[in-house]
């Protein structure tokens, strides 16, 4: 664990002591090396339990894929931001990369935490760099509103979580995940206990986000600069899913009845947000709502609490993280050239950027869950386990899959096909950097087809 955490902390001296000419080169190389080292976490020395442990941090089959995803994402964020941050004064560039690196540190410690309070502190700590990135480097005036929504939605959900965790500490005497998984089931039979149950989960449901409390997400994703959107979509949403999976162990047997409304909300959210996607004119907003839709499926899978549900949730989280981030990068390439997110203004791009059209195509195919990509595998596992729980859910999930295919196709056709607008005169050709960025996003998704057991978690 430390062999990744210490290099990540050493990113800070790297950022501030490198000469301005080589800042982006060295940070990219450094973070890619960290990402390569993080692959060593995938070597599990035991079959089900915790590995790579020290007193405070450990990895287990649930957190390892998410940790590798986090470490992989930092170099991608740096690559994506290079173009639009480069013209700023050097100290501001350094501050920006510092924020990304600090997010990385907090996220590694959050996913690796063995004590739930540490996870909570890191969960909250990730809010601050993200808030700064959104409100300082966002491009429109709405970024302030977006930051407010983002911060206060998450905080409003997580204050009950803090109280719930302290109550748990009082009653069980420990909050270490290593110990809690073996503790006796709690006696949960009063109204107070039900409120405690809700308190444990609300923070993560807001973060996922669940459909009713999802309003912060489109704002935050749209107003954030590309690195902010990437890290939000790829990793921060998964913090919610990961937290839920950790807490579920202790929340039985209340979850059997109490999860009902949340499962229904999640499933309904898939359809509603999918339908909203079909009506979007703003490209980033479309991708943001598609994230809500996919995460609704993940939330439903986790709340079902079966092995297939958990496995499907992890697989879908990893696959969606990479693909959603790829889509945001593509949207940013269009934004950097036309300074507009309106899809109609940057249409027919296949004619002028044919190679990029391949990236758009692959990313959209992955988004609509094309076999054999892991997006489909995760979705199928969740849909199957939901069907096992109640056959009626197939109506909602099937319709959701249909709508997902619909809006992914819509996104592809709107941006790539059709007549190139007359007002587009000179757009820069696609940079090598942007092609590399897309390759580094989509090659892991394709490689995961070959070895999906990396993502299956400990339930399978």
């Amino acid at each position, binding site marked *: 664990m430390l062999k990744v955490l210490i290099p990540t902390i050493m990113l800070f001296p790297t950022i501030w002591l490198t000469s301005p000419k080589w800042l982006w080169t060295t940070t990219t190389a450094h973070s890619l*090396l960290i*990402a390569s080292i993080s692959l060593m976490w995938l070597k599990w020395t035991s079959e089900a339990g915790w590995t790579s442990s020290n007193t405070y941090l450990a990895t287990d089959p649930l957190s390892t894929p998410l940790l590798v995803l986090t470490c992989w994402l930092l170099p991608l964020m740096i690559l994506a931001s290079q173009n639009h941050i480069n013209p700023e004064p050097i100290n501001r560039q350094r501050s920006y990369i510092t924020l990304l690196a600090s997010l990385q540190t907090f996220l590694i410690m959050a996913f690796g935490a063995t004590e739930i309070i540490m996870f909570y502190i890191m969960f909250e700590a990730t809010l601050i760099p993200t808030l700064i990135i959104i409100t300082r480097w966002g491009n429109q005036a709405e970024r302030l509103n977006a930051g407010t929504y983002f911060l206060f939605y998450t905080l409003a959900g997580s204050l009950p979580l803090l109280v719930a965790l302290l109550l748990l500490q009082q009653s069980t005497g420990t909050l270490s995940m290593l110990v809690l998984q073996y503790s006796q089931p709690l006696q949960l039979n009063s109204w107070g206990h039900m409120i405690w149950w809700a308190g444990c989960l609300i923070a993560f449901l807001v973060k996922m986000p669940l459909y009713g409390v999802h309003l912060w997400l489109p704002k935050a994703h749209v107003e954030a600069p590309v690195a902010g959107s990437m890290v939000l979509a790829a990793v921060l949403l998964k913090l919610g899913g990961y937290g839920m999976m950790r807490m579920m162990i202790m929340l039985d047997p209340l979850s059997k009845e109490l999860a009902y409304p949340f499962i229904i909300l999640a499933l309904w959210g898939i359809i509603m947000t999918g339908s909203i996607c079909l009506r979007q004119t703003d490209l980033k907003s479309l991708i943001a709502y598609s994230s809500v839709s996919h995460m609704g499926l993940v939330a439903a899978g986790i709340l079902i609490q079966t092995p297939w549900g958990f496995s499907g949730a992890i697989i879908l989280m990893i696959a969606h993280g990479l693909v959603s981030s790829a889509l945001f990068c593509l949207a940013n390439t269009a934004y950097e050239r036309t300074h*507009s997110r309106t899809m109609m*203004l940057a249409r027919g791009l296949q004619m002028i950027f044919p190679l990029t059209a391949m990236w758009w195509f692959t990313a959209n195919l992955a988004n609509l869950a094309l076999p054999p990509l892991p997006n489909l595998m995760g979705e199928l596992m969740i849909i199957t386990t939901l069907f096992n729980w109640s056959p009626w859910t197939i109506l909602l999930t099937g319709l959701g899959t249909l709508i997902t295919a619909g809006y992914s196709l819509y996104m592809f056709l709107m941006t790539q096909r059709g007549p190139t607008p007359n007002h*587009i005169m000179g757009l820069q050709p696609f940079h*090598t950097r942007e092609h590399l960025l897309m390759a580094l996003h989509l090659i892991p998704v394709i490689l995961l087809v070959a070895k999906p057991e*990396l993502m299956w978690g400990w339930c399978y």
Partner: protein
Amino acid sequence: MASRLSRIWPTLSRVRLSAALGSRCVSQTPKSSASGAAVATDLQPVSPAAQDSHGHAEVSPFEKNPDFHGFHHHDSFVDEWNMKLAFFFGISVAIVIGGTFIHYLPDHGMRHWARREAERLIKQRESEGLPLMTENFYDPSTIVLPSSGEE
């Protein structure tokens, strides 16, 4: 009806567009980049700072450096080396070497071992005539239940 409409529509649309765009219909002149930018920014006004900072409005970096890779606008040496290092560490190290490492991980999650162990146990139990698996995981005599009188 539809065929008639399809014959009239191109002229109709052109008339409407030219009326709306006015002189901008003559859009082949290089000056139109300014009006093109104005059309793009009608919905999303771009601050002058952003335009200047990206340099797109002025000159494309490909003119000064035809081998521009997208990494550094003014220095082609840094741009080229950034590209080389990003590709090396990203593809050669992370994906190729990392992928090879992952591929050769021994029995990830002990799944192959579990399969072999199960087959071995089945063969052993069948040869001894034992049932493949007992119904009770724990020996029932060791479980102490509270008497039905208590809560």
